[in-house]
């Protein structure tokens, strides 16, 4: 019997990949293989044709210059991405694309970059860089371990829920103790590290959601996460 296919769409790997975002893709790809599925990876860059469907969508961080390069293209495909979100497609957006999946990003220079409004959040550029090791907690995923590095500060609107609450570090901004945002199966977060390797429960949430949505039931195979557990314990003890 041929293997069941799961498509992973990576947004803008060419311009928004400066920060270990490849790690998130690699983790999804390998875990899908280890669970017995056949991952199909689609790299979507500026000017490409967006596929009609995708089982998991991920996107990463970029420099300010990278955000400007992709901005017009993202706005153009925004309505389609929004429709994917409404159709419960699991997504993970980190840092730069988390910001642009919100309503807008106002730079510290006063320029406003419009977002695609999948997440009801807004981001304001500052001169303060929130940087260092971070631990957050979410009732579904437990402790989430990563590294943050951003000068944009994000605030949630009334239609967004925080993805997690900060235990150690800054999170969305220096004020409210929230980290990231969640809408349906869309997760926006500032966590690098990369986030998925040391937080396999989040990787498995994306995979499990995609597989059960498409095929009804999920693999009975088990992935050995001993090294992830050891790396988590180790990382949680490191200074900021």
């Amino acid at each position, binding site marked *: 019997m041929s293997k069941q296919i799961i498509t992973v769409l990576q947004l803008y*790997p*060419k311009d928004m*990949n*400066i*920060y*270990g*975002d*490849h*790690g998130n893709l*690699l*983790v999804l790809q*390998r875990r899908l293989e280890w669970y017995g599925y056949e991952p199909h990876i689609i*790299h979507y*860059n500026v000017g490409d044709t967006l596929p009609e469907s995708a089982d998991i969508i991920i996107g990463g961080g970029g*420099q*300010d*210059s990278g955000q400007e390069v992709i901005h017009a293209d993202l706005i153009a495909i925004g309505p389609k991405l929004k429709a994917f979100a409404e159709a419960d497609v699991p997504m993970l957006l980190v840092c730069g694309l988390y910001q642009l999946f919100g309503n807008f990003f106002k730079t510290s220079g006063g320029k406003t970059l419009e977002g695609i409004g999948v997440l009801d959040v807004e981001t304001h550029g500052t001169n303060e*860089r929130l*940087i*260092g*090791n971070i631990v957050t907690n979410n009732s579904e995923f437990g402790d989430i371990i990563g*590294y943050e*590095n951003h*000068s944009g500060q994000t605030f949630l609107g009334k239609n967004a829920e925080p993805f997690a609450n900060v235990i150690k570090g800054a999170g969305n901004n220096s004020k409210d103790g929230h980290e990231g945002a969640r809408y349906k199966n869309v997760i926006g977060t500032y966590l*690098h*590290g*990369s986030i998925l*390797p*040391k937080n396999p429960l989040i990787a498995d949430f994306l995979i499990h959601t995609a597989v059960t949505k498409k095929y009804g039931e999920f693999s009975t195979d088990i992935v050995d996460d001993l*090294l*992830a557990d*050891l*790396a988590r314990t*180790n*990382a949680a003890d*490191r*200074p*900021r």
Partner: protein
Amino acid sequence: MPHPFVVILGKAVRHAARLRGGGSALPGLFVEKISPDFIKQTLAQLPRGVVVISGTNGKTTTTKMVVALLEAHGLKVFTNRTGSNFTRGVAAALLGDINIKGHLDADIAVLELDEAHAVHFVKAIPPRYSLLLNVMRDQLDRFGEIDATAKMLEKIALATTDTVVLNREDRRVLAIKDVLTDQKVELFGLSDALLGDFPSDDEMRGGKLKATKRPDAAVILKKYSGNEATYQIADKEFSTTLKLNGVYNVFNSAAAIALTHAIMVDETDSGIVISTIATVKPAFGRGEELQVGGQPLELVLVKNPSGFRLGLKSFSAEGYATMIAINDNYADGRDMSWLWDVDFESLTELGVSEVSGVRAYDMALRLQYDEVTIGHIDRDLSSALHQFIDNNKDSPKRIYCTYTAMLALRKELSKITKVEVVS
């Protein structure tokens, strides 16, 4: 001229710090605190001025080569040899070299400086020459973004009074050329054929560097295979056999030649340049080879994804036992994201014998996702090192290590073999 009292006190602290086995920057910190003008006053005496070498990768080896090239041309050179490339590292090195009256017996100073510190340094002491190697992702947790790092290099270039030497193959470094009006510019580069060996951060996920129309360069690395290198220097070709290993070290030799050319101008002797380059060995920990139990052991410093990728590409795993040691101290960078931007597939076939360092488990986890077999994991560097040596007695060995892991491993290795003391 620095106050003699400052010099004597500083020298005493340096002596005490070395007896204690301490780091190179401590006495410099001491002098920096009590006499902030110390470096400025001392360097102002030099007849041929100050040279600053900066960029993400290759500063230490390139500086070593430039010093060798200038010395071969008969100059007396002051340098910060330890790779302690913060301002206080320079102060510490100065304290070792000046006489008790504060006089520095040198014609020229060649200094490697960390990008962020160089910006402050050049404000106080404008260099006569600068060499800007590359801008790659390194310690983003310290600098924020690559474009911000490029801005730092631009400031160094703008503060330079005579000639700025730039890497033609790094688009951010090359762009600095366009903002310079008062300075002479010299470029170094690669032949189109060699470009493919140098993935840049921009092309990391989008392919390799492509040969586009680029401005002419004074020095070009034309060919490199085995240990044979061919350079084109001012339109003439020269070939030689090198002691350097690693394709990035060899590219840096082209940078060193270009800088020497900018400094010596008509006094440059191409014969001396080529014969000197042929004898230069890599700087400590940058492909440095030690002997342990009758087998070679190489130390390869890795501090960012591009450096690690080039290291894996430059040194074939075949016939070698491999150890990887990853620390996350301030000098290494706290963030582990960078490990996920390196492909370790070249190690899949033979596996990694030992994984160590403060972040050994992060490294091991990274290897798991490239399906690389791991022999043993031990966060403690010295016990891991001994385990690695014992498990691979009859095999040549190679250790990829971050900066502070390298310092610790060299110290441990110095107990069992000859390790060049760098101070």
